[in-house]
């Protein structure tokens, strides 16, 4: 008989529509590390027209999509699940939103011809289509997940995102563009929600964030979170190689 550890319930939102840039790697990382920590991960895929109980999940993930898919999801948020997801954010469910998913948490996305596509508005941020695509390796410094650490990834977006007053960025850009290429901020953190432009996939090379999400999920559900130390040598090597590479290329 194999002892099964505490359950951790993960909701993968729109896996069929929002999976640019290997976003599914983030869900693979959450599931694997949960297993290695001795937890029992359950992953549900949730798509258009489904009405999930977001409060019953410990971690929710949404990736990026192409313009067309993003519009379908925008409609689905308005008609079906936007307010429930907003409630989950306020209730401190752990949420990771990448790129298009990140933009949709805000007030609106303004397209190149001035049209405003509404988001769910749970976070006071907005995105404006820029003329230039912001593409390349990114290094961010952050203390949002404990002691000061680096986050590495790759960004590829034309939307420029601005945070309202009182919202905290995920970290400071050391290399790359970040939210808008102007103010040096990257991403957002609010309660247990993380929004970011970093893909690559984000979590596998940044195990500190993966473990942070798992910990927040466990804390909210069980009131405690004991994660065992794992051997991160391969991940650390990739993380450090990414920093090295980004710095050499930038020179």
């Amino acid at each position, binding site marked *: 008989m194999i002892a099964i550890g505490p359950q951790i319930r993960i909701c993968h939102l729109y896996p069929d529509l929002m999976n640019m840039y290997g976003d*599914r790697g983030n869900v693979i990382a959450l599931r694997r590390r949960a297993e290695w920590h001795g937890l029992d991960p359950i992953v549900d895929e949730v798509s258009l027209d489904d009405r999930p109980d977001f409060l019953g999940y410990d971690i929710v993930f949404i990736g990026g999509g*192409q313009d067309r898919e993003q519009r379908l999801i925008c409609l689905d948020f308005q008609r079906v699940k936007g307010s429930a997801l907003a409630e989950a954010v306020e209730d401190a469910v752990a949420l990771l939103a990448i790129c298009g998913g990140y933009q949709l948490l805000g007030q609106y996305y303004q397209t190149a011809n001035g049209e405003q596509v509404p988001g769910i508005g749970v976070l006071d941020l907005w995105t404006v289509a820029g003329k230039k695509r912001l593409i390349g390796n990114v290094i961010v410094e952050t203390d949002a997940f404990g002691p000061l650490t680096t986050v590495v990834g790759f960004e590829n977006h034309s939307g420029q995102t601005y945070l309202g007053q009182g919202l905290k960025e995920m970290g400071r850009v050391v290399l790359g563009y970040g939210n808008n290429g102007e103010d040096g901020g990257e991403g957002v953190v609010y309660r247990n929600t993380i929004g970011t432009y970093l893909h690559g996939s984000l979590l596998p090379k940044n195990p500190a964030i993966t473990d942070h999400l798992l910990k927040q999920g466990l804390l909210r559900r069980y009131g405690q979170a004991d994660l065992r130390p794992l051997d991160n040598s391969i991940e650390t090597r990739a993380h450090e190689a990414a920093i090295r590479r980004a710095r050499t290329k930038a020179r």
Partner: protein
Amino acid sequence: MAPSRRIEGPLGPRGLVAVWLAKSIIRLSRVLGLGGSTFPGTVARRLAPGILGALSAGLPKGVILVTGTNGKTTTARMIAGVLRAAGLKVVHNRSGANLITGVTAAFIDATDWRGRLDADIGLVECDEATVPKAVSELPVRILLVTNFFRDQLDRFGELAHTVELVRSGAARLDDGARLLLNADDPLVAGIGRNVDIPAVYYGIDDERQGAPRMVQAREAKHCLECGEPYDYKVYYYAHLGKYRCPRCGRDRPRPDVAATAIELDEVSGSRLTVRTADGPELDLTISLPGLYNAYNALAAATAGLAAGAGPEAIRSGLAEASSSFGRMEPIDVDGRRVLIALVKNPVGFNEVVRTVLGDRGAKRLVIAINDNYADGTDVSWLWDVDFEQLAAAHAEIDFVVTSGIRAEDMAVRLKYAGVETNRISVEEDISAALALALGRVEAGQTLYVLPTYTAMLEVRRVIQRMGYARPFWQA
């Protein structure tokens, strides 16, 4: 129809100097053992920007352009075989350098020192983003589009943008040109509905080859016209299949050239029965494995028919088409069998992994991932490859050496797929990685080497230096 904006006309003294200079560089780089498949083109175009138009203007049968995400090189090589079997002299960028500079270099390489091109027809494999430029410079009579998958998004932006690039190129074709489109890919077939150029569709009409559910990364789940999810009667692979929109009724065009029966056989070769619109039924045999190569052969047969090749030329040309440069190419290294298979996007990589798993016995692999421009600078697509199916065969995995600029990323991917970490070695340097792997392979055993494009060039250089492979311009 808009008049042609093509830059044509005599070569002129500048053009002639450009030809000499580029040909000299090509000669020199061969003597030095370098590939040099694009640089001479860059130099020539700098000197004489209209050179490609000038060289190709005199081709009696114009140019066939082949584009799409997967299968370009293999399909173009099959078409070359068919055209030659039909008695035509072909100028072809066969090394796979498919940006405009590479195409220019290939055309210059084929001219004589007086700048004359002794060929009947041009055959150009072309990067999707290069299609508009290629159409504006070359006398394209036939544009063949194979399929659209996610590939190097950092370069093309979103897939929709890639499709639009090809469509806008197609819209600029001259009167009398024809489109050859894969009916089974909604993204490709959609191009035919959005331009005024007549289209010939090809597709598979053997539902035994399909599945009722889609298992791989998906691209075109929703109707291009109205956004409703398509109903698929059958999926052949990824999003290729028989689809129909339940809301607006848009459906797969009926193929003019259809494979009505396919028998896949790795050993004796796959057999296809092909129905043509008004011609005879064709029985084709190809020596390349997998359904994706059946698609390539079907595309090549369609192009052959469009170019006027007869049934016998199509049959014999396809039968002889050998495995393309770097694609599952076996090399004998002191009794050890080294199989090199190019990997460049999730769908192609999945097919390669499936083929590797189809072989019996222990699996020994080198996976070399570079992130140079030609590979795509963003390697996040590795997370869309189903390495979990490789990890599921863990008892058979002897070792995997990850290599290339992104060796570490590949190692992380394998770890998270479930490959045991004590089977994974990381060696960034490709030469050292091959030495390490070959040291662990005995005579009679097989080593699989799966590199991205620029990593493949490196792999071949290393193996060539060891004295085992021919330079690729002779391949």
